[in-house]
């Protein structure tokens, strides 16, 4: 695989994007009826589904319930058909566990947890097709699902990845760009306050470049916010229209 030029001299990435361009985002909210909230998102070829249940009484009785805030339970899984080779274990492997934990941390920071003491919110996300930026797509889908469920949050949580190739930061990197080495930064951001809910960096990046790459990722998060916000507003007006009609 070596020898693929991730960024051409003319400034195009392998798939034809420029360094600062996101992949195409398409999303839908309220895709399921049974769940309290649900959403589906496509970021390029990465596709993710999120469902939210709750807030409801904490399962496992009083032991797991927290007296001052809601318990957030996240579960991340990848569909067996999500990658080129069929995946044997869709969930429960170390990577999924880590992702679940990261998601939990992210949403504990964003959801107004103090509003529902002694209760629980379940967030289930599944990657249907993986092509880089799985975590980001999951966060964005979960955000939409939580909004769909009507659970109050401080702000949207938008996540975006960024890489660094030949002295240029690349936003929203695809699987190819991820797998050819180089640093891979993941940022989950509350866009209005620019507070970082989660920050992760795989492989080494020199401190001199850190701010450049972080800026790029932040910019990406804000762009995603614009898209998600538009989708939410469309969805809301759609819902109100249908309510008005009925």
């Amino acid at each position, binding site marked *: 695989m070596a*020898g693929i*030029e991730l960024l*051409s*001299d*003319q400034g*195009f990435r*392998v*798939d*034809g*994007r420029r360094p600062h*361009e996101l*992949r*195409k985002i398409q999303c839908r909210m309220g895709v399921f009826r049974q769940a309290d909230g649900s959403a589906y998102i496509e970021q*390029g*070829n990465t596709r993710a589904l999120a469902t939210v249940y709750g807030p409801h009484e904490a399962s496992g009785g009083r032991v797991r319930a927290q007296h001052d805030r809601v318990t957030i339970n996240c579960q991340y899984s990848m569909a067996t058909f999500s990658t*080129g*080779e069929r995946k044997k274990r869709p969930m429960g492997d170390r990577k999924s566990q880590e992702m679940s934990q990261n998601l939990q941390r992210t949403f504990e920071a964003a959801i107004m947890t103090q509003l529902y003491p002694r209760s629980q919110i379940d967030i289930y996300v599944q990657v249907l097709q993986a*092509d880089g930026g799985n975590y980001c797509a999951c966060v964005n889908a979960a955000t939409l699902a939580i909004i769909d469920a009507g659970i109050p949050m401080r702000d949207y949580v938008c996540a975006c990845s960024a890489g660094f190739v030949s002295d240029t930061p690349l936003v929203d990197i*695809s699987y*190819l760009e991820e797998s050819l080495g180089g640093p891979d930064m993941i940022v989950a951001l509350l866009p209005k306050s620019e507070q970082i809910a989660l920050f992760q960096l795989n492989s080494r990046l*020199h401190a*001199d*470049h850190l701010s450049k790459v972080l800026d790029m990722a932040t910019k990406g998060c804000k762009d995603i916010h614009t898209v998600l916000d538009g989708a939410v507003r469309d969805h809301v007006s759609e819902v109100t229209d249908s309510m008005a009609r009925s």
Partner: protein
Amino acid sequence: MLTSKSFVKKTKRGSVIKVVREHYLRDDIWCGSEVCDICLQEAPVLERHPQIDSDLCDFPHYVLPDTNVLLHQIDILEDNIIKNVILLQTVQQEAKHRSLPVHKRMRDIIANTDKKFYVFTNEHHKETYSERKPGESPNDYSDRLIRQAAKWYKDHLERARKQGSKVTDGDDESGVSVVLLTNDMANRDKAREDGMLAYTVHEYVKSLIAKPELIDRLAQITSAENERKKRDSDISSDGGRKVLFPEHMSATQLQSAVKNGTVKQGTFHASSENFREGHVSIHGEEQMIFIKGLANQNRAVNGDIVAIVILPKHQWTCPSSVVAVDKADKEEEGEKDFEEGENSDSSRPANSQPTGKVVGIVKRNWRPYCGVLQPSNNMEGTRHLFMAAEKKIPKIRIETRQAASLQGQRIIVSIDSWPRNSRYPMGHFVRLLGEIGDRDTENEVLLLEHDVPHLPFSESVLSFLPKMPWGITEEDVKVREDLRHLDICSVDPPGCTDIDDALHCRELDNGNLEVGVHIADVTHFIRPGNALDDEAFNRGTTVYLVDKRIDMVPELLSSNLCSLRGNEERFAFTCIWEVTHKAEIVSTRFTKSIICSRAAFTYEEAQLRIDDKSMNDNVTLGLRGLNRLAKILKQKRLDNGALVLASPEIRFSMDSETHDPIEVQQKEMRETNSMVEEFMLLANISVAKKIHEEFPQCATLRRHPTPSPSSYEPVIKAALAKGVELEVDSGHALAQSLDKAVIPDEPFFNNLLRMMTTRCMTQALYFSSGTLPFEDFFHYGLAAPIYTHFTSPIRRYSDILVHRALAVAIHADQSYPSLLDKQNVQTMCNHMNIRHRMAQYAGRASVALHTQIFLKDKILDEEGFIIFVRKNAVQVFIPKYGFEGTLFLRGPDKDKDGLFKYNEEECTQSAGNVTLRGFDKVRVQISAETSNIQHQKLRMKLVEPKVSGFSVDPQPAEPTREVESQPPPTKKQRRGGP
């Protein structure tokens, strides 16, 4: 703006998996032409009025080459006459995939703004992309993409012209058209059907009125193409010519064959003595596989990575000790010779080696070769043979019409292909270097053959130089230690302009001494990552030829701002020790400083000052102190087991006008040489410790591997013949036995022995500290556990890296990413090792060249020593000129055969009562042999001891003539160890 389009690819990675990638098509990729007002481009590359005089296309046009044209005719595209070229992304990527060197050259062309090459990203353009049709081969697909892009350009420029003429109100400016260049006839015809202008390169180049000689540079691949196409049909009937070579295996066949082990792959090394023989070194195996005969070599050229099969044991043979030179003048003769070569050897020698034959080429390693045109009877003809300067390269057939004017000139030729029916590879003429024997030409050949980058520094590199007049500012004084009050001086060889080190020594109040080594602060001027830095890294080292110096950094730095000249204020990187009078180090510190050297001495001047008792100024006192300490330091080092090695170093005195060498001298060693060397070693070791402490993973260090005892065998054997025993168990033992090995009657013996010992060792190497365990850091020659190069940043890039690391370690500078990357540092070290070695070889080749010039038209009797006895010759070393030559005892004329008898056990040659042994003193007559213009050699004849029927009479003494001489640029003494 984004249109998404995904497509499906299958890749093999053990199993077949489906890869889906997105492919965005855009509408913001501009055409890059000045003519166009439709595109919103900022800086169009292609000119409004492209001008090229062609009688085929006598209208303004842009050129659009296809992949094969780019790959094979890059020499044409590089010519200045070809401008305004559109390179498609498809073409560029395919070229990159198939040949990285071409890709790199192409990128250089694109970067050159005068050439007006524009890269059009056609596969991401909305209108020029199309999907691959089912069943379409990759080649056909890319050809179609290229045609589609060419068509789009044609229509687009047409539209732009219409719109442009509307705006400029009917100014009937004739539009610019696009000419597609392709050597694939089918492709050309299809393009013509679509109404495009399409020509083959040959048609196009022939039509260029301005530069008819460009035709010579066309690569001769047409016939290879034909052959490829006819492969399925009967090949032997191709053009009625005989097929000489077996077919190569295809890439896929090779892959599977290598995998299941029936075929081995390795690097092909042609023999420099016999063109029919070669070896293949297989990766990871010690035994070389022998290849005999041209058919078995099967068109492998020296350096290629080839696939071979090993022949059954009964076909094994061994290298014949015959020297064979390819003498064929014409192709037909060559073919005859071909068969002879195959059949001449039918004996099965007892000491046979594993023998194999080449069945396929994994990767060609062709490069442009320097050489001359072989003289032929028919100078008017267009087909000629070219002989490369490197003996391992076969002759190359080229087509040229300027043969007469190329006669007696050095030229560069590239190989294009080697079809099966051709005795020789086919190539094309690239460039004329100059006349044979002309010093500048020969120098250039030497530099090219050793791959030394020697072009003048480019504008972009020079733009990073400090602006003159340069001065020290307030801020500089603030961040640097002011050492201008110290009595610092430098000691260098005469005529040295790149002074990179200076010293001082003074008494401290507490009775100890303070010693300082001040090294030019080159990294202050060369910042990491800019063009100047890249260029310096690429050059790696300054190369010293006898009459020329090829600088690593531009002259403004090397000879002015970074040269610590006398009485000028300069920036330095200083290493200061406090030492006792017994040379024990009390403390060490490093600092960036400003110094003002009091004087720049030569070794001789410094020596005179030290010896002159009447001089007692501070500088002289300092020198004396340094000298005294240096002696102690040296003794300590020798006690530790450091080796004193010898290498023949000579200097030429040059005629001031003709620059011909007129006299040869051996370099002298004075006390002061060793004084400076000692402190440089100390500085290097101190710095090595410091940077290794600070950067255990990524410090640039230098090691000298301990040689295995078996590598000393030849010298031990030779010394034994003289009754001297060498112990090689440890460096210490070796140093002691070398010291003892003195034969009173033969003062040169010890030197000779050291020289030969040096040759048995491997070279010292740069490496990144994280790649090896600490025990392997050892520097054998200096007996130092850790070592680096710090003291010559003007002429070595390694020192620049070390300076940067040290500056970070003392918080004087910022670090940067690539400095901290272990792998990256190791890659840089490997590069510097190669450059370093090549610089040494180039330097030696330059000395050989000048010895040659010096001895031209002279016949001299000189004293020499036998350093090696061979089966049919003895190697004789001549100390006066520092070169060695071969004295053939069995010449080509057979009548002398049998005169000398070779004793294999004792390594002697004897004839009558005369016996030649290793280290024996002989007198030889040397003269330059000029019969072969390509490889001029020195011929040796024996004078003493007298062997009747073999030796020649001594020459009458020649009166020496006195000519005013000027010193050539000097190479600094081997400072800081080997």
